[in-house]
């Protein structure tokens, strides 16, 4: 029963992304939204944690939140998929349930 996890907090200020990664089962999907999109970038203190987690989890990031924050897609960790809102909706359909990490 695959689950979609949403993470909307910056990994530099909050422990939420770390908790999500710790408690998501293999094969789950994670979408980074709102301030959570900062977790999708390379060369930060959080990048290694996300890159390690990508062995077990599929990562997505919401394009409108990236653009709002001036994060160019060239700065994203390789293998993270950029989606728009219709892609976000599709992820909630393709997975059986959604857990929001607030």
């Amino acid at each position, binding site marked *: 029963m695959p689950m979609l996890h949403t993470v909307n907090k910056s990994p530099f200020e909050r422990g939420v992304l770390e908790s999500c990664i*710790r408690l998501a089962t293999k094969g789950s999907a994670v979408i980074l939204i709102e301030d959570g999109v900062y977790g999708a970038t390379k060369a930060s203190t959080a990048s290694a944690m996300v890159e390690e987690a990508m062995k077990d989890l599929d990562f997505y990031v919401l394009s409108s939140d990236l653009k709002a924050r001036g994060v160019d897609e060239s700065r994203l960790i390789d293998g993270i998929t950029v989606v728009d809102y219709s892609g976000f909706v599709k992820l909630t359909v393709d997975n059986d*349930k959604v857990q929001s990490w607030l």
Partner: protein
Amino acid sequence: MSDTKKFLFVNRKAPYGTIYAWESLEVILISAAFEQDVSLVFADDGVFQIAKGQDTTELGIKNFSPTYNALGDYDINKIYVEKESLEARGLTVDDLLKLTYEDEDDDWAEKDSIHVVSSAELAEIMDQQDVVLSF
């Protein structure tokens, strides 16, 4: 789809600093009326919600921690606490409220509602749910 769904309430925030813990408890109590299959998780700072010895007299906010004791009467007795979260905060199960219920299938024996589980066990439990509510 069956009429009964597995509802999971995930509690990850400390009490009093913000109202999420208290208003989460209000939803949990209401959920009991709908005869669903309800489980609670306390992880991260959420474990502080069920710390024993809370006394808000000086602070002036209502102490809502005694209400957790009523959960057993509402047939809410699957309460999972993450072991790793307790340890990181220097806590053990002895620092928590003793939450119990009477098991009608076992001659109304009093049993513990709280199950301390590892991250890996908790991940599996969360994966089995139908509806996950976060606060």
